[in-house]
């Protein structure tokens, strides 16, 4: 009896977990314009999406922004994670704590403080301000992801390579990079998805010169029912899923 009950409970929670997403995907292929009536299978919302020039432009802008934000934060994050992994130093705990503070503090506070800074310093709201802001909120996540992957790294490997006569360059190329590469990829992909999905920070620090996809979707959702939103939401979902599955795959493959 209890076993049956607990299974029923679990099933209903998982049903509710998936329902909103399944509904979104299903209705993105619905030919009818109204909310719930099924009008047959169709790709018309995807078509109207790709015929919308501003929408396509926003997609490219978002992809480019996510690409650059993920790359910058992975470069900085990798160096930081290496430092935190390898060295013991005073202030290490403070630094670790700071990562958590930045990660946990409300996005909107970061957003307004950055907006005020950008306007004060005279940074135009657009690609540059978005990039700076996105790297800022991606950075702690990337550092922590890379660090978590590095914690399994055996410190004796580079030493062994050196003992076997490898130069620093050879050691880095043949030992260090292959080992940390999966960690970097995982960090990069996480940064990419975080940047691609962000609405709150972008709302504050974006300008009319550089329109990005999440903000465009957000303004469509605020106005009301738009079947195109289902289509673009589905695309975004599939994209994030593929990215994250890729990162998982890279990680599990490297563990073998």
């Amino acid at each position, binding site marked *: 009896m209890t076993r049956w009950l607990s299974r029923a409970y679990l099933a209903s929670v998982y049903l509710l977990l998936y329902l909103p*997403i399944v509904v979104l995907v299903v209705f993105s292929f619905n030919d009818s314009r109204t909310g719930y009536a099924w009008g047959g299978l169709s790709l018309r919302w995807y078509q109207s999406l790709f015929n919308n020039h501003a929408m396509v432009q926003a997609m490219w802008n978002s992809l480019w922004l996510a690409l650059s934000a993920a790359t910058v934060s992975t470069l900085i994050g990798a160096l930081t994670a290496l430092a935190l992994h390898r060295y013991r130093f005073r202030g290490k705990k403070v630094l670790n704590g700071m990562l958590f503070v930045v990660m946990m503090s409300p996005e909107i506070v970061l957003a307004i403080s950055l907006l005020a800074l950008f306007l004060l310093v005279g940074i135009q709201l657009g690609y540059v301000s978005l990039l700076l802001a996105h790297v800022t909120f991606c950075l702690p996540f990337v550092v922590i992801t890379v660090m978590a992957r590095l914690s399994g790294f055996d410190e004796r490997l580079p030493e062994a390579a050196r003992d076997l006569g490898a130069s620093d360059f050879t050691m880095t190329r043949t030992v260090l990079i292959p080992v940390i590469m999966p960690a970097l990829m995982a960090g990069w992909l996480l940064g990419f998805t975080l940047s691609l999905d962000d609405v709150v920070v972008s709302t504050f620090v974006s300008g009319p010169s550089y329109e990005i996809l999440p903000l465009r979707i957000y303004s469509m959702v605020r106005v009301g029912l738009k079947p195109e939103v289902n289509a673009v939401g589905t695309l975004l979902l599939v994209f994030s899923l593929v990215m994250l599955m890729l990162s998982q795959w890279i990680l599990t493959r490297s563990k073998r």
Partner: protein
Amino acid sequence: MNRQVSRLSLWLLLAPFLLWILLLVLVPHLQMLRVSFQVRESWDTLEWGLSQYRNFFTESYYWRTFVRTGVMSLFTTFLTLLVAFPVAWYIAKLARGRSKGFLFLACLIPFWASELVRTYGWMILLRESGVFSAALQALGWADGPVEMLYNDIAVIVGLVYNGLLFMVVPLVTTLEGMDDTLVEAGYDLGGGHLTVLREVVVPWAMPGIVSGCIVVFMLTLGSYLTPILMGGKDSAWFTQQIFTQFITRFNWEQGAALGVLLLVLSSLMVWLGLRLTGQSLRKVMG
């Protein structure tokens, strides 16, 4: 390796990060703090003062919204814990082998979608012309379209949904570390279900509970999209007021003060929660 070289390479590795945090986190936050204490006397004169903070406490609209946001966030956090605990228990203790990994992964996947997409999914379900409304009518339980969106319950549903994963993961982690014989011993000593839960399971899972609650509480308190998109006209969230002050009214001083208050009061509540449950942040956050 020589000590000085090692120092130098440490600094070189850390420099970009420290610089970034200094220029784009520390400086802007201090700047925000400064602005919040400045009072605009006329269009070009600023003076130091507390009037923005006074406004918060004297104008009931501000602090009422804040209290409302705080109370609803606490409620949401508690509800999330209630929903998540049995799920985590099942994953950690009842599921075996492949189904364990599968259930855990299945719990993660919905959160790979962005908050905006997830919230929009809920809007499709709950809106007047939406799926639930249609289902109720088809079943004959409702005569006409039912609007379930744009009220506080919808907001809480959305927020619990968004917080669920962040509660399940730490709970599963701590519960997995619990020895099953502890529970058996509890029963053998004559404890009922509730006694064992209260005296054995909850104390053991406390670090996970507190860590999940802190994350969910902070996420909920600072959330912006869900209350705006799913809430009604009178279900204002504190973050919306910050947006209004900053963007709509262009009153930076007031907006900055509200931002500082959000930061300070949320940290205070986390600290209070830790004290009350006797946990330390380091233990809770691993």
